[in-house]
């Protein structure tokens, strides 16, 4: 067992050795520029890219012509949102998203607002799911895009994307989904789900960092986005820049492996996750955040009441876990996702995201249970609040003196 145990697979995943192996030739003898159209080195690189495009497309039920390679999901999210906003501005200027989206989507939407767009940020229900009635009510004739993530990065809830897509389409809007956490973990099919644009990233599914893709529907309807980076006109003019050939090959391989192993792996991980969750919710005053029926198989976000958040992370230093999204973890702010479910700042701080992965073993889960239980129990022993709670004092009724 390697200490600290890595249970932060929603932040990033280790690269699968099979992915690394697939990439290596493209670092050495197959180093050509995929855009070099008149010699051997270019063709070999292009072949690698073409094959990867098929592998990615296959995993999400798309055609290879619908895959645009990018530097990652953040760039894909930016390209989709800003690109649709610019391309469809004659049609309308309204975008609908949700408050629990990843920063990449929220910040791109804020930028759209600066450019004169209107954005509705839908609240979510207590279980983290979007209220379809509220979505329907928010739709206007000006709405050009609905952007709702597939699986949430902090609590793992899976949104009813099929229903959301149907509502968007009924009102003539496009549906985009940030599926960074879902692709490769659960079946995602752009046609079954009615997805028009989809962002994905390699490093969340055992591929390399620095590469991702944007799916852009070509038929029914044919979707176009305005390029956000101009240059040599790569990726059918939607994304210029020399292709990251080894990275793209790695993404392709990661998609292929995920597709083959998804079913068995989801079963294995959800069993381990449930074991962890059941053991930890045996602790008094611990709660699972988000809908547990519609949830990614490898994630559990658990709040431990009456435990001081920073102390908890310190006491759990044998586990690499996170109390929220990595992309905002340096900020020390409580998770905005948990807050939007109605959690207080304190409770949001004392919540832990456990993200299991392909290389997580049962032994590690057992150890994680032990470490977490010990940490929570120890901190509660030191906590006056816990003492008061045990004495039956209603903490909400106390008026705290200001310091």
């Amino acid at each position: 067992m390697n200490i600290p145990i890595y249970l932060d697979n929603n932040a990033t995943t280790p690269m699968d050795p099979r992915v690394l192996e697939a990439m290596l030739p493209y670092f050495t003898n197959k180093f050509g520029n995929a855009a070099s159209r008149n010699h051997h080195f270019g063709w070999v690189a292009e072949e690698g890219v073409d094959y990867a495009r098929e592998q990615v497309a296959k995993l999400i039920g798309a055609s290879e012509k619908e895959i645009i390679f990018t530097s990652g999901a953040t760039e894909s999210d930016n390209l989709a949102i800003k690109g649709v906003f610019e391309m469809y501005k004659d049609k309308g200027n309204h975008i609908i998203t949700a408050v629990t989206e990843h920063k990449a989507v929220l910040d791109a939407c804020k930028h759209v607002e600066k450019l004169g767009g209107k954005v509705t940020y839908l609240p979510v229900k207590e279980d983290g799911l979007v209220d379809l009635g509220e979505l329907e009510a928010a739709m206007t004739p000006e709405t050009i895009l609905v952007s709702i993530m597939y699986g949430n990065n902090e609590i793992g809830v899976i949104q009813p994307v099929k229903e959301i897509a149907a509502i968007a389409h009924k009102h003539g809007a496009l549906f985009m989904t940030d599926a960074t956490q879902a692709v490769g973990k659960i079946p995602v099919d752009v046609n079954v789900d009615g997805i028009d644009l989809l962002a994905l990233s390699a490093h969340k599914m055992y591929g390399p960092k620095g590469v991702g893709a944007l799916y852009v529907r070509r038929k029914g309807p044919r979707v176009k986005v305005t390029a956000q980076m101009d240059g040599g006109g790569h990726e059918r003019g939607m994304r210029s820049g020399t292709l990251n050939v080894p990275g793209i090959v790695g993404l392709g391989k990661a998609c292929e492996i995920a597709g083959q192993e998804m079913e068995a792996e989801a079963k294995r991980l959800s069993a381990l996750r449930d074991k962890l969750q059941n053991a930890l919710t045996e602790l008094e005053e611990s709660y699972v955040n988000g809908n547990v029926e519609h949830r990614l198989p490898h994630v559990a976000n658990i709040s431990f009441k009456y435990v001081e958040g920073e102390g908890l992370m310190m006491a759990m230093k044998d586990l690499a876990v996170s109390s929220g999204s990595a992309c905002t973890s340096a900020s020390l702010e409580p998770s905005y996702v948990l807050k939007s479910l109605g959690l207080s700042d304190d409770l949001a701080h004392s919540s832990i995201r456990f993200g299991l992965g392909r290389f997580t073993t049962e032994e590690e889960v057992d150890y994680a249970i032990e470490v977490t239980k010990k940490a929570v129990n120890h901190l509660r022993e030191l906590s006056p609040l816990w003492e008061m709670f045990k004495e039956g004092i209603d903490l909400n009724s106390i008026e705290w003196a200001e310091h």
Partner: protein
Amino acid sequence: MRVYFDNAATTALDPEVLKEMYKVMESQFGNPSSIHAHGREVRTLIERSRKTIANLLHTSPAEIFFTSGGTEADNTAIRCGIIDHQLKHAITTKLEHHAVLHTLQAMEKAGAIKLSYVDVDDKGLVDYNHLEQLLQNNERSFVSLMHANNELGTLTDIVRVGDICEAHNALFHSDTVQTVGHFVHDLSKLKLHFMVCAAHKLHGPKGVGFLHINHKVKINPMIYGGSQERNMRGGTENVYGIAGLAKALELAYADMQGHQAYIQDIKSYMMARLTQEIPGIKFNGETDPEGSLYTVLNVSFPEMEMADMLLFNLDIAGISASGGSACSSGTDIGSHVLSAIGANPNRPSVRFSFSKYNTKEEVDYTVAKLKELCMVNA
């Protein structure tokens, strides 16, 4: 024999760079934004890489921002530099790489700016007096002039342009993709506001580069989401790529003079051999070592039958070269650079670009093949 003479399109990864990257890919997989040990380990790696790069370029790490490559860096500098400083006028030449030219043209088309082109001579050299005039006759401008032209190798005097831009309070961006790691850039002296790097042009990995932003200018991000790169560029960092980029630059600076002398020697040798063996051969762009990039040689062949088959035949002979920029090769519209300097379209042009891995034997082989091809088709 397989000869790779297309190093301006991309270069082979240096095995030392791969070694550095392999370590990271194999075992240092954390997300640099994570605060646990896995995250902190790679955060340190990124910041160490940034420092290495900053030290080599004589600037502060705070001025180096990692990107997915040269195109993203150019786009960020141009789009955000212009918009965030409310500039309405930009100056460039028709010889720029498409990452610059198409970006400026898109902004012009969108009505965001007026775009002026500086005159260039038949070798692609910028007319500095015309640049001064354009700056005098317009409001505050954004100037984008590449350091070395990727097709011709002609150099721009970026020290001089920096002085001119300073005198006119203009913002100066230089696409230095072809020269970072091939020439010394001292950012403590150069009057540049933005310069860019793509690792794969200096034996580093594809998919990573950086944008240098002078501390005197502030811009907003182009890619939003997450607080990476001090809020300048959202997205999980390409950790292994960044480590590879730093290593590649370190290796480039370790013996730059030796590197330069070695490659210049190959280039000069090829020029001499071609002149000797093929009557009527000419060269496009500046070829004087003082004014040109030593890795690039653009050869203008005598008019011949089946000129468009020249590259194809070279490939069959195992020689990889290019008709122009890789980024627009395959579009069959010909080189925008060659047409901008008024090159004779009936004379086929081929760009040969060299690296430290090339040899004079490869030149001999290539010249012999070229001679055959010219004789057959003459």
